[in-house]
């Protein structure tokens, strides 16, 4: 018979059990109290002296830290993967093994039972974290740092082992908090297959997927010079630039400038990443250690980099400069007679600039305008002439100032650098096209712009002449006349004041014809009277401008992917539409309506945006890549220039001819077609066993810029003939205007192919390098 009290006993027992469990849970929760206080600098931690209840997980300010195991048990002598997991509040991060510009990597110290060995953390691929002008490397969100521990082979199965880790970290958003926790895990030791702990399987899988994989041996090479470290990744399929972003994370702190952009150069056999070294003196490590990540559209793959770090066989300028004689000599020779030569060449170049199709139309219009004023005040004409010259001189000073300032700031640029920017090329093409259309009469901007044109045309109009000078200079920038390149190249290695003088000579040369006309007595009277012929001339002058546009489109094509041509021509079309709209909407008598003008401006802006939209890849392939059979020297013979290639060819005893050229350099193109492609010149190259290297400077290339600098030049063209042998004989620099005979004569001064190689073969000992 059940007494009424009997049923209460199980209930009471249950209540007691629940109470006990609750107490135990509370006790456990107290033991797992927050690891550190809010006080920065306090290395708070859960009590380290509490071996009784292991805290597997700890909640610290802004981060939760947890020690987890991949498997539910460990077996003797079998590695067990553990993980230290950080769960971070949004906006907060912890650091990678190299924290970057600031911060501190987390540190894990194992406290293992006897016989166990602990392993190193395997670091998942970090993120770049920008903190103002600084760059750190770390993790946000949820990150697990795997590390393996291995029980001793004599670990008693059936027991349980306490694995503890003393974890220290620094967690930051913008301000930083250090943290420390003692975490411990009781791991059963059992023989038998590993059974994954499903609770953490996902976190482990994510962490392991995020580990960099090993690169195939030899696939990654690294070289260093004074300023940069180049990481080359060989890739059989590489020919196009990498689809997404490529980034290198160095494992060695202080090696590279973390915040500097990493330039990617795609080549035929892979890609090259150029890292800027930290400018502080630091011994170079023997190996480059880090992670190379290529990511596109969210997915990415990462390679662990561990490659010997070789010194570049001699930094490019020194290798070439030393062969040319120590660089100071080259620079010094640029004073005295050379300075006078530079001034003379600049003046001549300036004169010739007036004949270039970019400048000629504007100048001609000015002369026409001049003719229109025939019979006017001679003094007024002279003043106009001076104003025009002032416009040109001032613009050249601004250009020179910008160029010198950029070079002083470390930019590796020379004259023509503006054309290495595809955006500039596109912009100039649009501008010249617009001018050509206005000359053709598509749009009568004079009427439409009565307001602001009136300001210039009214009164003395001196401002107008000045502005024409400025415009003429702007139009001159895409065109590099003969002599001009040499003069400016010389100018840029001169001290700033001397360089400015050379630029002034160029400006004066350019202004000279018009000024001469303005000052010539009676010249005005000799000019033909104004008449309808002026309209024809004006329209005809549109065609040189259009020819320049075509040339600029070609330059742009040489620089970038072929879609750039589509973009640029579309931009030209849009600008044409814009001008037509204004021209039609306006008329002889009234300016275009505001709506039409607005639409035109919008179209023109769209045209500009479309034209510059396609960026060029960092280095165009070798010139003539598109199989242009007419390209000079039959590109099959010409190899792309690199300092390493030059060295190896010379080391093999071959004479080398280097052609520094660019698509936008008219003189270079003419020289290549007239001289270098001539049949007898090519025969002479073969007879002397000369290796042909082409340095294509169409797009920005710091290597080539440095090589040019090594010869005391800052622009193209430059032709250098290196004799075979050990580098005792200095290389010969050929003139900027080549003829086939000139080249053949220079080659004639080389020994014949057989002799050269024989002498190279008998040469003994390492080549001495002039530092």
């Amino acid at each position: 018979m059940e007494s009424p009290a009997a049923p209460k006993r199980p209930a009471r027992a249950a209540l007691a059990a629940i109470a006990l469990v609750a107490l135990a849970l509370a006790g456990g929760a107290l033991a797992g109290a927050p690891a550190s206080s809010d006080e920065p600098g306090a290395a708070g931690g859960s009590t380290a002296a509490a071996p009784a209840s292991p805290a597997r997980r700890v909640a610290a300010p802004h981060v939760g830290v947890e020690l987890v195991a991949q498997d539910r048990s460990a077996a003797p002598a079998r590695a067990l993967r553990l993980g230290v997991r950080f769960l971070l509040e949004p906006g907060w991060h912890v650091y990678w093994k190299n924290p970057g510009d600031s911060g501190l990597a987390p540190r894990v110290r194992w406290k293992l039972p006897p016989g166990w060995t602990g392993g190193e953390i395997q670091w998942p691929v970090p993120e770049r974290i920008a903190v103002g002008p600084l760059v750190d490397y770390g993790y946000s969100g949820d990150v697990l740092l795997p590390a393996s521990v291995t029980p001793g082979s004599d670990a008693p199965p059936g027991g349980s082992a306490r694995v503890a880790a003393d974890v220290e970290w620094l967690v930051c958003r913008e301000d930083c908090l250090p943290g420390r926790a003692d975490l411990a895990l009781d791991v059963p030791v059992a023989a038998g297959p590993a059974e994954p702990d499903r609770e953490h399987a996902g976190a482990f899988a994510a962490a392991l997927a995020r580990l960099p994989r090993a690169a195939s041996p030899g696939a990654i090479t690294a070289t260093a010079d004074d300023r940069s470290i180049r990481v080359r990744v060989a890739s059989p399929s590489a020919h196009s630039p990498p689809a997404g972003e490529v980034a290198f994370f160095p494992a060695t702190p202080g090696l590279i400038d973390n915040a500097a952009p990493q330039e990617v150069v795609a080549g035929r056999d892979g890609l090259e990443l150029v890292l800027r070294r930290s400018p502080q003196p630091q011994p170079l490590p023997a190996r480059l250690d880090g992670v190379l990540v290529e990511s596109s559209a969210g997915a990415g793959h990462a390679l662990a980099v561990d490659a010997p770090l070789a010194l570049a066989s001699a930094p490019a300028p020194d290798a070439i400069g030393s062969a040319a004689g120590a660089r100071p000599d080259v620079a010094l020779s640029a004073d005295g007679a050379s300075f006078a030569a530079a001034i003379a060449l600049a003046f001549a170049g300036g004169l010739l600039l007036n004949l270039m199709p970019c400048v000629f139309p504007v100048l001609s219009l000015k002369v026409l305008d001049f003719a229109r004023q025939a019979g006017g005040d001679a003094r007024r004409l002279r003043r106009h002439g001076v104003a025009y010259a002032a416009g040109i001189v001032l613009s050249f000073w601004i250009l020179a100032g910008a160029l010198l300032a950029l070079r002083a700031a470390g930019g590796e640029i020379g004259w023509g650098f503006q054309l290495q920017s595809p955006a500039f090329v596109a912009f100039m093409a649009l501008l010249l096209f617009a001018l050509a259309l206005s000359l053709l009469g598509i749009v009568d901007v004079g009427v439409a712009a009565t307001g602001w044109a009136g300001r210039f045309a009214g009164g003395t109009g001196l401002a107008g002449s000045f502005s024409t000078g400025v415009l003429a200079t702007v139009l001159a920038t895409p065109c590099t006349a003969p002599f001009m390149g040499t003069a400016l190249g010389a100018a840029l290695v001169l001290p700033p004041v001397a360089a400015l003088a050379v630029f002034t000579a160029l400006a004066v040369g350019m202004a000279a014809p018009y000024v001469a006309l303005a000052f010539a007595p009676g010249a005005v009277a000799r000019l033909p009277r104004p008449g309808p012929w002026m309209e024809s001339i004006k329209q005809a002058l549109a065609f040189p401008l259009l020819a320049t546009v075509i040339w600029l489109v070609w330059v742009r094509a040489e620089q970038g992917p072929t879609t750039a041509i589509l973009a640029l021509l579309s931009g030209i079309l849009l600008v044409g539409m814009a001008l037509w709209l204004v021209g039609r909407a306006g008329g002889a008598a009234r300016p275009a309506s505001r709506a039409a003008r607005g639409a035109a401006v919008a179209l023109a802006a769209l045209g500009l945006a479309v034209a510059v939209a396609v960026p060029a890849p960092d280095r165009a392939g070798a010139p003539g890549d598109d199989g242009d059979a007419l390209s000079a020297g039959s590109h099959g013979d010409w190899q792309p220039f690199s300092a390493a290639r030059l060295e190896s060819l010379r080391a093999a005893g071959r004479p080398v001819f280097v052609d520094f050229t660019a698509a936008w350099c008219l003189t270079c193109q003419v020289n290549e077609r007239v001289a270098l492609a001539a049949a007898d010149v090519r025969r002479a190259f073969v007879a002397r066993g000369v290796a042909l290297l082409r340095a294509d400077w169409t797009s920005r290339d710091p290597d080539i810029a440095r090589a040019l600098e090594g010869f005391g030049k800052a622009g193209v063209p430059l032709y250098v003939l290196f004799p075979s042998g050990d580098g005792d004989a200095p290389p010969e620099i050929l003139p900027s205007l080549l003829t086939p005979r000139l080249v053949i004569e220079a080659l004639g001064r080389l020994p014949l192919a057989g002799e050269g190689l024989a002498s190279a073969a008998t040469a003994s000992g390492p080549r001495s390098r002039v530092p």
Partner: protein
Amino acid sequence: MNSTAAVARRAIATPALALVALSALVVAAPSRAAAEAVVGSPAPAFSLTDIDGKPHALADYAGKVVVLEWVNYECPFVRKHYDSGNMQQLQKSAASEGVVWLSINSSAPGKQGNYPPETWKKLVADKGAAPAAVLLDPDGKVGKAYGAKTTPHMFVVDGRGTVVYAGAIDDTPSTNVADVKTAKNLVTAAVAETRSGKPVTVASAPPYGCSVKY
């Protein structure tokens, strides 16, 4: 005639475009490296006001060895050196040797470590800090000119104005106060070598600390 004049006017009336084109040239410029005070180069000149309102320029201390300490009292790494009394000790021995020790704070207004001068004076007194001056660089110009990345970030400039040391204060990056005693202080070594006319053996070490709050 008129159309020619119009054309000429047109050609004249595009100076705006010309200016835009000229500025496009500057846009075409390649990126420049960030500024940094590099060992062996002249230390960038600066002129900053201290917490008492007095101006200090680097040129004022020509002929003397100058130590620049980028500071942020709330950064755990800086606290490691101040709570242990280490930094104050370094500052006092510097003063006794005639070395000019300047603490510089480049925290932007509103960011950690940026205080009004009154608060600074109180903090400096509380901590017993003894630099020759505490200089305020709230717009970060001097910090960026030197390439100061962390607090602490140390620079030692010799009497001729050349940077002879740039980087970490010691060789043990951590926030543990206990590490101060065992670490090798690179600034002390650099100052001692510079004062005795010897070249600095460890001229730079990657700086460690919290980021400077530009």
